[in-house]
């Protein structure tokens, strides 16, 4: 998989389809992000482990000029790029995606429903995996659920990893950095921290699970997002990343009615 992805990227560079490739390179035994340009050595090009490459792309985007960038995308990365293009954070015409299908083991770790991009260039499609943690939480009674989440939120040490690494968490003025909602001092933060974070990305979360992967205390944030994504689908029939429509939360009722809400 590694060689095939490296070859695909190198070919794109050599053909002049792109000006740079954003990828990982092994430095010692640590995969490190790097911008590859024409003539660079691809022998240490790496695609594992799952890396928040789209977050990186978004962060360096303001500093790019007219360069066309290629990157290796997994199923979740592809949706993240689509969501960012839709929201005009990055320019889709300057991004070239090389599709990489995840292995069944990776899909199981991520509890991923769609572990492959639309066009698979490298690897073969694995079966989607249901999120049994989210299902378990849904089957609890309300009191059990509250106790469960309170226990989880108590572990938080406010590292902000979940929001920093999130590809779609990009507001200039962040509610989590507002002392109105999150006090500067004190660990754990208020129980509202993760509820606010979850709500803020609810209409753009593409369920890559980067929040949970970056969490040092293993709060099942991905399952919280899964539940909210199910709610979004139920309320508005909207799926972030898949839908071309803008978020229904910023549309009027004529454009995106709410099911089951009477006046």
């Amino acid at each position, binding site marked *: 998989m590694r060689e095939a992805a490296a070859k695909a990227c190198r070919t794109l560079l050599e053909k002049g389809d792109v000006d740079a490739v954003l990828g990982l390179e092994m430095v010692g035994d640590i995969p490190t992000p790097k911008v590859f340009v024409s003539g660079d050595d691809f022998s240490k090009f790496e695609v594992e482990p799952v890396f928040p490459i789209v977050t990186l792309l978004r962060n360096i985007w303001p500093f790019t000029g007219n360069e066309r960038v290629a990157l290796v995308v997994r199923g979740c990365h592809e949706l993240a790029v689509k969501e960012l293009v839709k929201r005009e954070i990055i320019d889709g015409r300057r991004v070239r995606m090389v599709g990489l299908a995840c292995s069944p083991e990776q899909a199981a770790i991520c509890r991923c429903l769609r572990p492959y991009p639309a066009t698979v260039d490298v690897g073969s499609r694995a079966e989607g995996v249901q999120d049994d943690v989210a299902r378990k939480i849904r089957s609890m009674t309300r009191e059990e659920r*509250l106790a469960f989440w309170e226990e989880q939120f108590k572990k938080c040490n406010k590292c902000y990893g979940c929001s920093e690494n999130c590809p779609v968490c990009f507001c200039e003025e962040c509610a989590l950095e507002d002392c109105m909602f999150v006090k500067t001092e004190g660990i754990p933060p208020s129980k509202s921290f993760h509820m606010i974070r979850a709500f803020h990305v609810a209409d753009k979360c593409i369920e890559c699970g980067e929040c949970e992967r970056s969490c040092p205390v293993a709060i099942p944030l991905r399952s919280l997002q899964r539940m*909210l994504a199910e709610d979004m689908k139920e309320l508005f029939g909207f799926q972030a990343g898949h839908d071309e429509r803008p978020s229904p939360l*910023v549309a*009027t009722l004529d454009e995106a009615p709410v099911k089951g809400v009477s006046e």
Partner: protein
Amino acid sequence: MAEFQPRILAFCCNWCSYAGADLAGVSRLQMPPNVHIIRVMCSGNVKPEYVIKSLVEGIDGVLVLGCHIGDCHYISGNHRTLKRFALLEKLLEDVGVDKRRLRIDWVSASEGEKFQKVVSEFVDQVRALGPNQLGRGAA
């Protein structure tokens, strides 16, 4: 033991519901004193963060009142409120908070009686639910 008295926040929009509350007061309609009114310019101004924060910090119920759909002073502010709060209700249920602690309704400036009705109903409803477990231990 004394009966549980819930603490309730009501976000009222400046153009309709706050005037409706005023009318209810001027008309001397009897209402439970558990409700603290906060005036906002539009119900669309009420961030879900405010609701989450107040529930976490020990408020037992949150009432959001705005103009009727179609009557919003800012044309479509309340459309957004309605959608945002539909999702917020789901989030509250997902983390284990009863969604009946949150109510969104429309009260126009001439509906003093409706304001009284909504407030009384909501206070009774939250009283029946008991103290908010999410906010226990908070001030």
